[in-house]
């Protein structure tokens, strides 16, 4: 049967060049962006920006945003938005603060409970979107205000009138789990590298950079796992299918509802993770935490190659998108430029990315 019908090669299809093949990778734009931004700062910024400590400096905010951005990218590939993640950072921070400070729970309980709260809110968001059939954009916009307001009200309740809840650092002091969510990791490795003379040290022999801030490891780990899930598991295929055309996906047996609700829960949990890390780091939580992060996360995802219409994008792209973000925010302080150029740059980047992505999509689908 197989040999019986051999369709001839279609003479009208040109073979692909390497360039077109690369063009079809969603993360290409973000990687190109990283190279451009790096070149730009190499030319304009103080040379200390690209020393080890300088890199840690811009990678820390990049990591905090990136964890949100990768989750937002996965949700966007699944065809939905979540505008409530920024407020979720504040809300989860408040929950976490109340659990550790007011209730005095150890981290082994406080962190899973915070995650559970966030996941529940994510599930509610997802359920409302699916039940009503309304755009997630508008449903989660409501969430943005509700959660921000709930954080304010809740904080006042837990602190007796203040919008800042202090004392988290004291509460988690000495907790064995704290080292996975705050401070620097791999200190042994860095001490060894310092003694071997690979990295810079202070005159007393201790390394100038004591270790890698934990959020960077979370960020890298999350990017790797997300990429693996998207590209190499059935669940990943379901996410692309759900975002590409949820009707078609449903007809093919993809559990569309479960996929979407899980993704909403994932973004909420990512926000809770960022909340836990930053709250332990700062030692306190306040209602403004995570302000505007929802937009930055979506911009990160779009720079990373996600289409606003869903069904296309990559976690690695969002990873590099977040690095661009961190480099620009922190990098400008190493230059003579006014720091407020940041927002102009951001808007420009977003516009460029959207236009670029649109061209890519036409190439991929062979539209003319």
């Amino acid at each position: 049967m197989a040999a019986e019908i051999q369709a001839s090669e279609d003479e009208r299809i040109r073979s692909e060049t390497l360039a077109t093949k690369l063009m079809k990778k969603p993360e290409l734009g973000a990687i190109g962006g990283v190279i451009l931004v790096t070149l730009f700062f190499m030319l304009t910024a103080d040379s200390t920006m690209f020393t080890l400590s300088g890199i840690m400096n811009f990678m820390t905010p990049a990591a905090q945003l990136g964890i949100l951005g990768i989750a937002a990218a996965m949700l966007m590939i699944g065809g939905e938005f979540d505008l409530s993640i920024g407020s979720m950072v504040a809300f989860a921070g408040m929950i976490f603060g109340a659990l550790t400070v007011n209730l005095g729970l150890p981290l082994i309980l406080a962190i899973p409970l915070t995650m559970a709260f966030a996941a529940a809110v994510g599930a509610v968001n997802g359920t409302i979107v699916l039940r009503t059939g309304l755009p997630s954009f508008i449903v989660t916009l409501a969430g943005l205000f509700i959660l921000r307001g709930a954080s304010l009200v809740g904080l006042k309740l837990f602190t007796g009138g203040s919008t800042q809840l202090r004392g988290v650092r004291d509460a988690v002091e000495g907790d064995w789990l704290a080292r996975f969510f705050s401070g620097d990791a791999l200190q042994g490795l860095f001490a060894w590298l310092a003694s071997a003379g690979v990295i810079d040290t202070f005159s007393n022999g201790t390394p100038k950079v004591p270790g890698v801030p934990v959020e960077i490891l979370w960020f890298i780990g999350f990017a790797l796992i997300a990429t693996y899930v998207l590209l190499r598991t059935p669940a990943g295929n379901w996410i692309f299918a759900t975002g590409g055309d949820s009707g078609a996906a449903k007809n093919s047996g993809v559990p569309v509802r479960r996929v979407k609700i899980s993704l909403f829960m994932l973004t909420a949990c990512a926000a809770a993770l960022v909340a836990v890390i930053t709250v332990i780091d700062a030692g306190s939580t306040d209602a403004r935490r995570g302000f505007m992060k929802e937009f930055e996360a979506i911009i990160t995802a779009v720079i990373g190659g996600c289409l606003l219409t869903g069904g296309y994008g990559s976690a690695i792209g969002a990873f590099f998108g977040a690095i661009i973000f961190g480099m620009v925010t922190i990098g400008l302080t190493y230059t003579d430029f006014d720091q407020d150029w940041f927002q102009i740059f951001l808007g420009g980047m977003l516009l460029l990315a959207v236009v670029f992505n649109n061209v890519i999509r036409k190439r991929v689908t062979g539209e003319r």
Partner: protein
Amino acid sequence: MADDTRFHHGSVPADARPIIHMEDITKHFGNVIALNGVTFDVTPGECHCLLGDNGAGKSTFIKTMSGVHKPNSGQIFFEGKPLSFDSPREAMEAGIATVFQDLAMIPLMSVTRNFFMGREPTKGKGLTRRFDIDRANEITMEEMRRMGINLRAPDQAVGTLSGGERQTVAIARAVYFGAKVLILDEPTSALGVRQTSNVLSTIDRVRKQGVGVVFISHNVRHAMAVGDRFTVLNRGQTLGTAVRDEITATELQDLMAGGQELAQLEGSLGGTV
């Protein structure tokens, strides 16, 4: 209605056991009666055409057959046993595959990812259980070759395929996943001449593998090209079933239009419909 004698010979021969037999199906949506007593069956290795004009109830009927809608009354026999499907998934698992007009294809995704959408082959266990993409690519290339399409690469996006090729991917997918009954919803309606003939020959190929094909169309010519039996649906009712060579295209056309009106038009249109 069908006092035409030839229109009664179409019932299944006693020896051929239908895979699916639907008896006197009715379906209402509120006060709209979409189906009002439809009887239909399909046997292995035949192409049974369901013909009807727009609004005749074709779509409602195939959705009932594929488990999307539950009939208000009537019976469904699957391989001789009474059965009712609660979801499209159940019908799919039983072996009833439907290729809808939208094809359930996602243009941005690769042919392989579309082919295995919702039914990905995996390897490994537990946490390392993963999408076996190499095997999936191999199977896709092989199945498409069997249908007469040489893909440039399995990771080619479906959006770059022509309409006929997409239709073929959808059919190949259904057959690969063990369809016993393949329902094709207007597979040729948006295609050009050559693509149509490709799809029709794909249908022929599928039929020869022993799959029962339900070919929905309002184009009598396309139906006549591959059909073994023809059932006409009009205003939610089946008018009867005819066997190939016992009925002409003109007669089918007349029945689809509900008899008289088109026959009068025929004269002025000069056989162009």
